[in-house]
């Protein structure tokens, strides 16, 4: 196959990626979009294999091992664990790009490489290695292998700064002398830097981290595309790099924070609660009273938070919603962009529990509906419904867009205790008139609510 034919066929694969991503923009076409993108990938692989001068033993065993590992993980994973799985896949993509660039360098075996090739090899190794270890630290945090709270130590920024300087120095040396040692050094330091960059970031900030790592894995692929002059890698990498950046931006906006604040502030570790505890009395309720309130409402909005996922209560909430719908109550779900541990996580959990996607409302849709809502059921969410973000200029989360549940007639908060959220900020919503607290585990509360509803 001539180099031109090959390039044109890679272009067809790239077009399949673009079409696939486009179809991922609507729930009706998304599944076929994913299939089209996968078809493009298969085609790119076949085009590469035709007349390829490759070691079939290495290649065949590598493909088999990878397919078995990846396939098993994809089939077995629970939807609650989706963020860590995507983090792990990101990590593998990143390291693969770095290794391809590394192999290209090794293959040159001392022959002088063009300046731009050396430069892109450095970029690819650097980004790929950071993505690899960064993703696996994120994986460990999400999986609970290490604590989710930010890990900080004195001089942290100094250490990271020194490592960055070390990488730049090694890069300059590598660029000038093409010394293999300098390349290994870049790879090794980048691996360390990936770990150190993610450990100070708290569990609740993971949506931003995962989106950013997603973008980086694309950038690494694009850099590798430059190394081996392959347009399929450049296009695929650029698409993913751009997509990850947009999601990163959406997530930081949803927290009203800047990217550098998320990455470098150790939010939650250092911030002492600045707002004095609001205190006051809370009104508690029981599943039986709650059942009556819900059964006679006409519009109910459920606001799920990460607590719902932790309690594996998405099916329980769906069962309650089914009972309510049978009574003619309209049920919708108000989902804050950072409600889960990755963008859109809560939507997937509810989809798994058979909630139709037209009932999953985004921030603006929910806030439009809330003034016409009789009962809001807040399940394991806290900061995303905290009115301080809107009203209290002194609050650390001031300015963060929230679900304005206090605009609804009645707010019911299901929560294990009055403990504050990850940022250590008290929530005046709990003490407000019209709010009732049900202190319970989300799943137990919903089960009790379900049986109480049968009796109403």
């Amino acid at each position, binding site marked *: 196959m001539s180099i031109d034919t090959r390039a044109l066929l890679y272009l067809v694969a790239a077009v399949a*990626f*673009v079409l696939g*991503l486009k179809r*991922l*923009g609507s*729930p009706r076409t998304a*599944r076929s*979009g*994913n299939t089209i*993108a*996968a078809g493009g*990938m298969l085609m*790119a*692989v076949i085009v*590469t*294999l035709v007349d*390829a001068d*490759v*070691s079939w033993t*290495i290649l065949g065993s*590598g493909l088999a*091992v*990878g397919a078995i590992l*990846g396939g098993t*993980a*994809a*089939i077995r994973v629970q939807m609650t664990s989706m963020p860590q799985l995507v983090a792990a*896949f990101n990590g593998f*993509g990143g390291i*693969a790009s770095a*290794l391809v660039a590394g192999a*290209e360098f090794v*293959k040159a075996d001392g022959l002088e490489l063009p300046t*731009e090739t050396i430069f892109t090899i450095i970029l690819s190794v650097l980004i790929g290695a950071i993505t690899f270890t960064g993703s696996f630290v994120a994986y460990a945090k999400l999986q609970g292998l290490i604590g989710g709270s930010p890990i900080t130590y004195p001089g942290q920024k100094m250490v990271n700064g020194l490592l960055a300087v070390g990488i730049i120095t090694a890069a300059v040396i590598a660029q000038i002398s093409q010394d293999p040692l300098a390349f290994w050094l870049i790879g090794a330091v980048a691996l360390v830097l990936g770990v150190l960059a993610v450990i100070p970031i708290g569990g609740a900030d993971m949506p931003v981290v*995962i*989106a950013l790592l*997603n973008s980086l894995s694309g950038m690494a692929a*694009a850099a*590798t595309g*430059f190394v081996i002059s392959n*347009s*399929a*890698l*450049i296009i*695929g*990498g650029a*698409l*993913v790099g*751009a*997509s*990850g950046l947009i*999601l990163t931006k959406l997530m930081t906006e949803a927290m009203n924070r800047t990217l550098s604040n998320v990455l470098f502030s150790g939010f939650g570790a250092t911030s002492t609660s600045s707002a004095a505890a609001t205190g006051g009395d809370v009104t508690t309720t029981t599943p039986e009273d709650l059942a009556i309130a819900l059964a006679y409402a006409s519009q109910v909005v459920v606001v799920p938070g990460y607590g719902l996922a932790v309690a594996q209560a998405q099916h329980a909430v769906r069962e309650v919603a089914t009972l309510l719908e*049978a009574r003619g109550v309209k049920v919708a779900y108000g989902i804050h962009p950072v409600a889960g541990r990755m963008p*859109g*996580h809560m*939507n*997937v959990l509810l989809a798994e529990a*058979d909630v*139709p*996607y037209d009932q999953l409302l985004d921030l603006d849709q929910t806030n439009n509906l809330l003034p016409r809502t009789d009962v809001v059921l807040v399940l394991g969410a806290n900061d995303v419904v905290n009115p301080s973000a809107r009203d209290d200029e002194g609050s650390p989360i001031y300015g963060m867009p929230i679900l304005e549940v206090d605009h609804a007639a009645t707010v019911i908060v299901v929560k294990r205790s009055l403990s504050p959220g990850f940022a250590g900020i008290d929530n005046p919503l709990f003490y407000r008139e019209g709010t009732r607290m049900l202190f319970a585990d989300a799943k137990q509360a919903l089960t009790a609510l379900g049986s109480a509803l049968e009796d109403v």
Partner: protein
Amino acid sequence: MPGIPLTPDVLSPVVVGIIVFVLAAFVGLELISKVPPTLHTPLMSGSNAISGITVVGAIIATGAGSGTLGSVLAFVAVVSATINVVGGFLVTDRMLGMFRKPKRPEDTK
């Protein structure tokens, strides 16, 4: 003057690559901004699988003349990239299969 071949000015591959990269990045930005929040997780895992296109590079890297070190790097690269590609597309398909159409009448289970 016959016999002297024309040598047109040819863009270097890097410049062509940069042009392709920048245009593709803008296409990506346009496409992704339109994806509703409901689909952000499948979008992320699907696009993540696309970044596994690096598997093409990994395949080429297993080529002859890479020596032992090169072969080891290439093998690990093929395994990692394949995990990314196969796992990514499969799990995205699994997730999207769960997104249920809006209710028709009598659709409650």
